């Protein structure tokens, strides 16, 4: 058992037989600890953590773990993603499409451009499909009809084209640059 990190195949079966998980699930709200890449600790209810497909499969592979390290995720976007998933759990228990739509709209409206963009890779990594859709739609709405320069600064993208390369690309697809708003 002590070498379980190297050979996880058999440990799943043994832990299922041991009494430990039963005593734990008997508690009304089991907490799961998530650790961000900047070493912040988040205690979340199991039902919330199971919204994260990546965390869920982590537990399926090694059920005896108590802390899930998230090496690709920093604390700020993680806390916002947790906030979103907590609400989604409530809507799962009491389905109300109109309220859910309203919540999702408000959730993105109050976020800065940077917050939205920073959450996208987190939602993708944790495989939260609903949130990824909400974020991508919000981003699409915010950059609608905006200039290339605006979109670059929105995403925080470094332009690595030379001026000549960029001019040639713009000429090649001149049709795409008509009807763009002034910044």
């Amino acid at each position, binding site marked *: 058992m002590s070498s379980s990190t190297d050979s996880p195949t058999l440990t799943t079966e043994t832990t299922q037989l041991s009494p430990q998980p039963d005593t734990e699930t008997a508690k009304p709200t089991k907490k799961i600890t998530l650790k961000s890449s900047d070493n912040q600790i988040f205690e979340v209810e199991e039902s919330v953590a199971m919204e994260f497909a990546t965390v869920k499969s982590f537990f399926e592979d090694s059920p005896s773990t108590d802390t899930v390290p998230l090496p690709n995720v920093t604390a700020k976007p993680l806390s916002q993603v947790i906030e979103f998933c907590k609400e989604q759990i409530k809507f799962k228990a009491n389905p109300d499409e109109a309220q859910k739509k309203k919540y999702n709209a408000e959730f993105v409206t109050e976020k800065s451009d940077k917050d939205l963009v920073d959450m996208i890779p987190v939602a993708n990594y944790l495989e939260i499909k609903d949130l990824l859709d909400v974020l991508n739609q919000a981003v699409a709405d915010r*950059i609608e009809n905006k200039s290339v320069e605006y979109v*670059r600064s929105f995403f925080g993208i470094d332009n690595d084209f030379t001026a000549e390369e960029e001019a040639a690309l713009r000429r090649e697809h001149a049709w795409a640059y008509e009807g763009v708003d002034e910044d």
Partner: protein
Amino acid sequence: MNSNIDRISNLPSSLLIIIASFLPFKEAARTSVLSKQWLNIWRDAMHIQFNETFFVKSDEPEENRKVQREVFINFARQFIANYSQQVIKTLGLACSKPGDFLSDIQNILMFASSRDVRELGLDFSDPTWREQALENHQAAFELPLPVYEHGQVLRSLKLFSCSFKVSNFSNFCSLKTLSLGLD
């Protein structure tokens, strides 16, 4: 300063394709000049609009428009030849002279059907009809068989100046929206 604001560049291309797929087609095309990583992302975006009016200027003489229409069809031809995603969400095609490009239009529709397109919009009306005040004109194009054969995944179908056989609509079990129009 630029190096620490480049938030989105370390995302995998597969995620950038998802982001670009939330944008209108013209806007997705403009992402090609954001940076080298974005150069070809839009070529796999899943909302595709082949719209003649992006290329053809209605205020120019017909001889110019004819050339612009050739450029437009050539663009669409190349786009579908290079496309690498398995599934597309939307395909819109607007062409005022379908009779001049029958095989290309057939190919575009074969392409859409083979990628299990969810929303299909076809507009073969000609703006000059209105100028000539013609009250009756034949539908300019007949919906080809592959569209019916892949009908079971279509959620939305919009047909303008495109004729069809009602009896062939037997397996459109996912269809939620149907719009038909003459011009």
